[in-house]
């Protein structure tokens, strides 16, 4: 039998396992394996190697499983609590924004009146008006930054050991 036929058979044996074969290649390989004991032995060796690979397993100890589950449950609770707090913060922000919008004409009028009463320059209340709008946002940003500095890092669990 020609050497290149064996080479082709060997390539097809590997391809069969790695990516599958087209029907005509498979038919050719099967007929070749029937006629060629050397290639048939190689096909069996490959099959044996892969079968052994498939039966290999790993045992996970019960304490490791229990520890993992416990950590996951604890962290899930932590994250849920954090999420609930964040939801509260967002609701507060939305309310604050809504109130800001609703009271804007009133604030505008109040600042105008105050400036007239105290004889302050017009530029001052024009600057004060947007400032009043930015104060709640600045407070939220400060609160978030403070929370972030206190919260455990995103993957804080890498340091902690249960």
């Amino acid at each position, binding site marked *: 039998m020609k050497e290149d036929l064996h080479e082709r058979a060997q390539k097809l044996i590997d391809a069969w*396992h790695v990516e599958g074969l087209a029907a005509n290649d498979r038919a050719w390989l099967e007929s070749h394996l029937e006629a060629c004991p050397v290639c048939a032995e190689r096909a069996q060796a490959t099959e044996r190697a892969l079968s*052994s690979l*498939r039966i*290999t397993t*790993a045992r996970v100890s019960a304490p490791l499983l229990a520890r*993992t589950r416990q950590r996951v449950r604890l962290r899930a609770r932590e994250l849920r609590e954090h999420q609930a707090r964040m939801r509260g913060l967002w609701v507060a922000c939305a309310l604050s924004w809504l109130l800001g919008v609703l009271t804007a004409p009133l604030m505008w009028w109040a600042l105008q009146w105050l400036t007239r009463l105290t004889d302050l320059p017009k530029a001052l209340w024009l600057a004060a008006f947007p400032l009043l709008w930015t104060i709640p946002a600045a407070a939220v940003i400060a609160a978030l930054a403070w929370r972030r500095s206190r919260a455990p890092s995103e*993957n804080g669990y*890498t340091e902690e050991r249960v």
Partner: protein
Amino acid sequence: MLRTVYWFVNSMEQEAQELARGLRRRDPDLLDRLIEQYHYRLLRYLLVLTSSQETAEDLFQETWMRVLEKGRQYSARWKFETWLFAIARNLAIDLLRRRQPLSLEALLEPGEDEAPIQVQAADDATPFETAAQSEEARRIASLLHRLPPAYREVLVLRFQEDLDLNEIAAIVGTPLSTVKSRLYRGLDALRRYMEGHPS
């Protein structure tokens, strides 16, 4: 027949969507079930990657924590194990990069030239071998651990985890052609070791 196939595909999709919803909710019961279902496959993969029982166990825990935290990123389009192994792999690379100058990433991304595979000498039993149950399984685990990690990783993903080539490429983050080339070379090396001709 077609109806059965449709029902099967449909129920798998529903299951994946249910899983995605549960992960988004960070449902601890679902996480428990997933840990139960995938624990040994995950640890086996980590042992193959790291060759260290302790490191694999650390990463095992961290992988599940990451699954919990990043659950919102899971999409029902992916098989859960593909996503799980990708997380585990990234964590392994990050951890080992911090620990050793020659990172796992370097080992896992070797040049794809045709240089012969450099193998380790057989020394003491690795944790993966210890974990392997039968004598034949221990022998194959020992042979597997003499292969460079990049090759043994794809062999394990293909032939132990039964993942398809696209899924392996997604986990490993390399082109399909690279995955195929590693599989062919790894398979060839494995067979040669089994035959006792590791040239």
